[in-house]
């Protein structure tokens, strides 16, 4: 399993944000995307996920097999928004994403235990605090399996203990042969990760 990006260019509102960005990640490798605000970290992740059209270049996965032939089908995307419905309970939210995304991983209760939200599954998602919402959203990565995790500021709103727990989750995912691409300002606690420095106007 390889994730390859070649000569990627990104635009926002007709203006070039970045160009000629390339990387190749083998299984078990992580890429940390850093840079100041406005450097195009989120744009890069959205282009890799295929949610934005690339201004140039291409992204592809190799060796994904039948289950994960394309980047979109092989990826989890965790953006700024949590993609959970406030009117539904946490369990219903996770159960829905598990059923919709297919490739079931941990069951809902286990996933909630893993992010230390065990026993809170019956609460409406709207009742949770910011950090708890983020953790519930991280549990979404666990209920269905995807080899590539695209994470945009994954630890925003998390406390110290949750950050460490999340670093452990990412390490576990990498050890299982997964790939992580994370845009962040904060150190994520991943040793040996590649780093991509983005600059404004590059």
């Amino acid at each position, binding site marked *: 399993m390889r994730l390859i990006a070649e000569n990627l260019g990104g635009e926002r509102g007709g203006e070039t944000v970045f160009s000629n960005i390339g990387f190749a990640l083998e299984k078990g490798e992580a890429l940390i995307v850093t840079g100041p605000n406005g450097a195009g970290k989120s744009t890069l992740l959205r282009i890799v996920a295929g949610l934005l059209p690339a201004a140039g270049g291409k992204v592809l996965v190799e060796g994904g097999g039948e289950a994960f032939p394309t980047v979109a089908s092989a990826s989890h995307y965790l953006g700024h928004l*949590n993609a959970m419905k406030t009117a539904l309970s946490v369990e219903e939210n996770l159960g829905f994403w598990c059923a919709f*995304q*297919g490739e079931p991983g941990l069951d809902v209760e286990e996933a909630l235990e893993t992010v230390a939200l065990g026993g809170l599954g019956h609460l409406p998602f709207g009742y949770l605090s910011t950090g708890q919402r983020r953790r519930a959203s991280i549990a979404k990565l666990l209920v269905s399996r995807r080899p590539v995790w695209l994470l945009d500021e994954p630890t925003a709103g998390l406390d110290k203990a949750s950050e460490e727990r999340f670093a452990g989750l990412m390490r576990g995912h990498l050890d299982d042969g997964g790939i992580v691409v994370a845009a962040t300002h904060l150190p994520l606690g991943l040793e040996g990760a590649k780093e991509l420095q983005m600059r404004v106007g590059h």
Partner: protein
Amino acid sequence: MWSLFLRDMRLSIRAGGGALIGVIFFLAVIVTIPFGVGPDLNLLARIGPAILWIAALLACLLGLDRLFQADREDGSLDLLVLNGDRHMLALTVLTKCLAHWTGSVLPLVVAAPLLGLFMNMAPLGIGATALTLLVGTPAITFIGAAGAAVAVALPRGGLLISVLVLPLTIPVLIFGVSASYGAVADPAPFLQPFLILAALTLFLAVLGPLAAALALRHGTD
């Protein structure tokens, strides 16, 4: 797909879903009409099917702007688009349309016979109008989905959707009302306009979700 249908149904039933708003609006419009046109029972019976159809059409448009906007605001739309390789996006849209129709429009169809009484309509006319509403309103939802997908990024897209969609729903309205009249007024036919109405619904069940999927795929930012 079934899970998406269930989720959207749950959301429309729970607090803030707005499933009842449409019915209340429908009721309000129908109840207002006799005050406007006066207590002429024959006139009310004559314009009844048309008024029911127009009121149902407007009530249908009421909740459409939230069809994709709610999912966009909490980030779900990104994931629905991202899973486009597993579930064809047009089918995802079709499922959302069906859930929206079942949750917000089907109650209108159920309420229509009761409101027909307010318009002094004959039982046959009431039955025919409810039947044409049942067959015709999905078409409005399917057209509306395309409008909602185009306007998904606009903060106050609701009115724009209505303006975009209303002209496109005219054929549905025409054949729906003429079939309803065909059932009560003798020389006019019922079956032909009714079949064309059914054909319109089937045609738009394909075209609407495809157009909406295209708009959603290119509208993400």
